[in-house]
């Protein structure tokens, strides 16, 4: 064992600290895919790196909660912070107004931890027999590159003006359009501005089939628009995210779900639900659930099988969006339920429509 050398073996794995030759905000992934950050570090981790370039992300909204807006805000803010062009469309009269609610990147928490006393152990607890072999830690150096890819966003701080007034931001209101041709043209012009891999673009379409849009009953037209968008996005370097409320007929809802490369859904949480509070830890802090139904796999046949597909959305300190696995609360011994029956909790009368 060689001591005081940076490597302890002849093998060294090239992690993704490789210089982002693809441009800012992009990361290489397996199978030749390039990833774009979703703006939520937890979600990037769950999806295996982020959203792959060229994929279509669809988010099924819940009629009772605005959590899809949180996802959109982080996505858009991440793009603006990295200088990636953005196209945003919504059924509101003035979509630009929404840009004012985008969050700003949080002050990095890593800066504080760097000031630790270097004499102290670096957080590893090494047995005394092996202390003499303690090599240099390789933990530094990866933090900087992380910020070039993704940031944590502080939802209470609005994004600085100069990001919002940038030249590469386009907003479309889809409320008054009788059909989808305007939106289709805007998307086409937006996507045509990306030559080969130098820059990646983001398209965010909010509440696509919202009832106030005139085209909302033209179901086949909407489906063909999505198909068009998906093919345009696949052949250019961008990621498109579409959120839609659950107001479609069931067959079309299924068709839309199949069109997605990555499919997420958000669900509302009932307030003061004692049974849920007993079952889950951290119920008080949760604002909603996020389900991951499908993860994009481009260039490969191997599917992603996640350990868990339902995550709770929490706002840490009311600022930072975190996604956590659902954890069972400790079973109260005095109440008489044992491990044998606690499993029965979930299978009894309550048929969950949360999928695992």
């Amino acid at each position, binding site marked *: 064992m060689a001591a005081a050398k940076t490597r302890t073996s002849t093998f060294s794995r090239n992690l993704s600290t490789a210089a982002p030759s693809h441009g800012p905000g992009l990361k290489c992934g397996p199978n030749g895919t390039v990833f774009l950050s979703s703006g939520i570090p937890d979600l990037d981790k769950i999806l295996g790196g982020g959203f792959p370039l060229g994929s279509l992300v669809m988010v099924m909204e819940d*009629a*009772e*909660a*605005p*959590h899809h807006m949180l996802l959109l805000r982080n996505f858009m803010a991440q793009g603006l912070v990295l200088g990636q062009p953005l196209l945003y469309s919504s*059924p*509101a*009269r003035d979509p630009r107004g929404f840009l004012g609610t985008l969050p700003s990147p949080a002050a990095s928490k890593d800066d504080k931890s760097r000031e630790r006393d270097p004499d*102290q*152990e670096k957080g590893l*607890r090494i*047995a*005394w*027999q092996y*202390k003499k072999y303690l090599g240099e830690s390789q933990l530094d150096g990866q933090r900087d590159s992380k910020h070039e890819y993704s940031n944590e966003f502080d939802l209470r701080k609005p994004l600085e003006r100069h990001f919002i007034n940038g030249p590469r931001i386009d907003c479309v209101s889809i*409320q008054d359009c009788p059909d989808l041709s305007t939106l289709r043209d805007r998307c086409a012009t937006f996507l045509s501005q990306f030559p080969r891999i130098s820059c990646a673009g983001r398209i965010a379409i909010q509440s696509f089939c*919202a*009832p*106030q*849009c*005139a085209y*909302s*009953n033209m179901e086949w037209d909407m489906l063909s628009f999505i198909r068009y968008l998906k093919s345009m996005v696949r052949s250019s370097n961008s990621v498109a995210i579409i959120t839609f*409320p*659950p*107001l479609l*007929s069931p067959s079309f809802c299924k068709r839309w779900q199949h069109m997605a490369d990555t499919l997420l859904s958000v*669900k*509302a*949480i*009932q*307030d*003061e*639900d004692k*049974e*849920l509070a007993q*079952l*889950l*830890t951290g119920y008080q802090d949760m*604002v*909603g*659930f996020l389900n991951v139904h499908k993860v994009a796999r481009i260039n490969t046949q191997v599917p992603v099988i996640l350990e*868990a597909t*339902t995550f709770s959305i929490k706002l840490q300190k009311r600022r930072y969006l975190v996604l956590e*696995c*659902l*954890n*069972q609360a400790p079973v109260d011994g005095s109440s008489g339920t044992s491990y044998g029956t606690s499993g029965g*909790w*979930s*299978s009894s*009368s*309550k*048929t*969950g*429509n*949360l999928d*695992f």
Partner: protein
Amino acid sequence: MAESICRALRDGALEGELAPALTIKDSVASPFALQVFSHVLSQLFSSILAGKSQSRGLVVVSFSRSPSFYLDLLKNKGTDIASSNNQIQILDCYSDPLGWKDQLAGSRNFTALSNEVLVSSTAIVFREVKHMDKLYNSIIELGKGLVGGGKIRFSIAIDSVDEMLRHAPVSSVARFLSNLRSHDQISSIFWLLHSDLHEARVTAVLEYLSSIVASLEPSHQLANGQRGDLENFSLIKHNSKKGKFHVRFKKRNGRVRVMSEEVHIELSGINFTSLPSEGAINQGLVPKVQFSLQLSEKERIDKANVVLPFEHQGNGKPIQIYDGRRSLVDGKHERPFAAVENVQTNENCGSGEIIYYRDSDDEMPDSDEDPDDDLDI
């Protein structure tokens, strides 16, 4: 809880947010939406008159009843209409919604039916219900006439969106409602809906557009929906006076508050009482969960405080290896001693301890097979 609904409408909208919108929904099995609507209307109007609400005026868009119905209703509740002329206006879409009487009058020199003087000062006839934009503009005009321009807000009550949906497609009605909600001067808006007159999608659209959904359900479900059965007769009688009132609030933080009450219809009006049994209104969202594999902060600190067996030596003193042979008494004296002296990496000596008892005394120390020799507890 009817109280919370009225409070929510009274408090109105925050700056930059959509105005709260209430849907009162019922069905044939429990047709009390009109009574609930009237109750909410009179409550809101009395708080407007008393100055306790954000809004300073009320515009009633009446499709299914004549304006005099509302004026009589408010009079019966004790509010003085004559003196409060500048706080309520009724857009009369009931008398002549499509403008037919006008056309008749124009072509035959027919004198139109004269309305009561009292009504005409507060009610304005609207004749083009097919045109949502014009309806929108008239409502805004009426409201501004009540409260003036600027930042002062007014509320809107729509008697029966069903009639609107007869004349215009769902998307125009949806656009109309969402534009009203996003208007700066609107404090709150509520409407009535009979859910069995429409397809499920329409009801879903209206619930999507509202921030509070109040639905009325029968206390007792009729068996097989058969109404002519003798057994069901008593249930029907029961259902004609009582019902269940479920409310779903969409809160700002994204959570949904669900409440329930019982509703009694009497001659004098409507009464809300709390439900006798605390039935769980659980939507059955309980998933299978895993056990927690992560540590909370407190748990992490406690874990860090535990002195691990291989840590508290090797700091200059001769290394001793515990061979499990010493008696328990000695062992106990040794342990805290060693822990206090040798802890230097952790500031707080927490309560973490490891208790180890050797399996058997027969084994030799430093046996090759026994990996526990490394431990020095």
